[in-house]
């Protein structure tokens, strides 16, 4: 029995750091980007304010954040979230409203500032191909759907969001009309019919690295992949062509988790990591896709990163968050049904 007690005590000692007063915590998507964020944004905040800051990463699954708020056991303060999760979490009271008297609101691009979110980074999906294997390729979604002119397998993300838009554009709908058409039952049928047409040539990926692996291995001729990753590959010497006319993009946001004991510091943190100085420093290290006007329009940064998303944003389709909140559950299930048919 005594030995058992010792074990318990040892374990408690092990756990002690976790029970101690929690530091301000920020959570992002991990990877190289977060390492650079740590070096510029997060350390910069601590240097300027003296507030200690810890960072962690997660997989963008918001279910656990919800549970954390309901359990009143908030261990994260600032989280990077996707737009639909942000809006839903905002309506459900999972995230605090951003205090726009602390966080400057004017610095953001349109849609960069919402009730509960301050724009973090932009991300996009566009068609790319291996230039050695395929010197020519589709230059828009219509041509992507043209399997006669551009034969070969194609890879898209597994999921309705983005794929439905692509299908309609492949069927000839212009970008500005996509969401109006997709909101109607006929439009949805049309999108699925378009997918049906090229189904034998389609392959679906789940992880962000997969489309690059598929194209590199010659498994598919063309793939829609995250522009950031493709751009990095190109910068590292890969002979890839990234087609900006097929761009679909959206923003990720910084949100403050509701019920955090560090609310005031969290707002200051959000303001700091969206301000021009730190973001410029981050852009020196990593080709980010800024959501603030000053950094997006900065001449030296634009010069430096020809593959920066914000340089090509005007050619792309902004993914409609509200549309996907309304139609998403239904369309995702029908997409899954279509996939499994």
């Amino acid at each position, binding site marked *: 029995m005594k030995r058992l007690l010792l074990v318990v005590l040892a374990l408690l000692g092990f756990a002690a750091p976790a029970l101690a007063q929690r530091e301000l915590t920020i959570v992002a998507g991990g990877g190289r980007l977060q390492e650079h964020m740590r070096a510029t944004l997060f350390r910069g905040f601590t240097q300027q304010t003296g507030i200690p800051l810890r960072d962690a990463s997660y997989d963008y*699954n*918001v*279910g*656990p954040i*919800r549970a954390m708020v309901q359990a009143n056991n908030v261990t994260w303060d600032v989280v990077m979230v996707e737009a639909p999760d942000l809006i*839903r*979490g*905002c*309506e*459900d*009271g999972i995230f605090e409203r951003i205090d726009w008297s602390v966080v400057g609101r004017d610095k953001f691009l349109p849609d960069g500032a919402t009730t509960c979110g301050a724009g973090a980074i932009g991300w996009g999906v566009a068609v790319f191909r291996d230039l050695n294997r395929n010197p020519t390729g589709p230059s828009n979604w219509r041509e992507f759907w043209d399997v006669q002119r551009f034969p070969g397998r194609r890879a898209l993300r*597994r999921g309705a969001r983005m794929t439905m838009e692509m299908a309609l554009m492949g069927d000839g709908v212009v970008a500005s009309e996509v969401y109006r058409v997709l909101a109607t039952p006929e439009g949805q*049928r049309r999108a*699925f019919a378009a997918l049906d047409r090229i189904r034998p040539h389609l392959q*679906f990926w789940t992880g962000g690295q997969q489309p690059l692996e598929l194209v590199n*291995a010659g*498994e598919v001729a063309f793939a829609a992949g995250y522009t950031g990753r493709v751009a990095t590959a190109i910068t590292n010497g890969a002979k890839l062509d990234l087609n900006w006319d097929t761009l679909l993009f959206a923003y990720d946001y910084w949100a403050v988790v509701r019920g955090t004991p560090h609310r005031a510091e969290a707002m200051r943190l959000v303001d700091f990591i969206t301000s021009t100085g730190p973001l410029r420093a981050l852009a020196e290290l990593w080709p980010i896709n800024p959501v603030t006007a000053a950094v997006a329009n900065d001449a030296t940064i634009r010069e430096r990163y020809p593959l920066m998303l914000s340089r090509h944003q005007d050619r792309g389709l902004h993914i409609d968050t*509200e549309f996907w*909140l*309304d*139609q998403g*559950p*239904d*369309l*995702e*299930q*029908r997409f*899954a*049904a*279509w*996939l*499994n*048919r």
Partner: protein
Amino acid sequence: MPRTRAALTAWDERGLPPEAAFAALAEESGAALQDRRIGALAQRLNFEQSGLRALLLRTARAQDRLAAPYAESLPALDACWGDPETWRLLRRAGGPTTSLYLLRALDLTRTAEGEVRRVPPDQALFRTLFLRTLWVSLLVTAACVLLGWPVAACIAALRPPWSSITLLLVLVPFWSSVLVRSTAWFALLQREGPVNDLLLFLGAIESPLQLIGTRFAVLLSTVHILLPVAILPMVGVMARLDRRHLHAAASLGAGPWLRFRRVWLPLSLPGVLAGAAMTFLLAVGFYITPALLGGERDQLVAWFIAQYLTREVNWGMAAALSAYLLAMAGAVAALLRALTGNTPAGTRA
């Protein structure tokens, strides 16, 4: 929204609800938006019919601009409020219980008249999914029993210390984690991975095969993972068998095949059924292995439960799918119990 609910409960679903319901909705939706309680109801309504979330939020945001009589100002804001169907759905969503998720999880839906009907074929998903789960689990169970039977028989027949050593070779994989073994298969089956290397080296194939993302990969690794689960109960029963039966059969002149068929097989049957039951019960709940090694058409019910729980935050669907999965597992367990007159767990130790 208690007042709206009360007003709608009093309503008989014929025609439009009374002004009190309109007024309560107009006021309470605005308050719910302010207090940020509106999300759950909005999501619940939207699951009944896409677009209702937007309608509710638009109404809540327009609260300041709405004025009595609300039975006129609400339909003026959006024609949907002039449709009794919208109110019927709202009334249903306000109820304490709903059969919606249980129906949807079987590809069924309730019409405005309350009639249960199949969803249109382009939305049907879950029947396929349950059938696939059943089929994959049965295949895996059959393979595990067929492959496991000789091993169990061999362990039971060997003398110590060989029996213990062989048993240990079964116990080692049994003890190592499902995720570790799925990961191992993931590494082995990669396009530029060892299995393809080996096949190329042997000249069996000319270019690497796509193995990950196929049903074959899922079946292969699931069988590998569950094989010890099938073997151990069989060993438990076979090791306890009374060998005098066999000797008696042999002394009565029965040949090996006859001995196997008439004595060994019936006597080891309880172990076989217990092993099959354990294997099946674990297989129906498999999540990681198909998620890692399967393609889009290889996911089982478990994948969708996880998806609804962690990603889409639709707990109703997750719960409904879990309930049916449990029922399916329970039915098979009960069937096997009836066949053996024994609980699978009881024969395990």
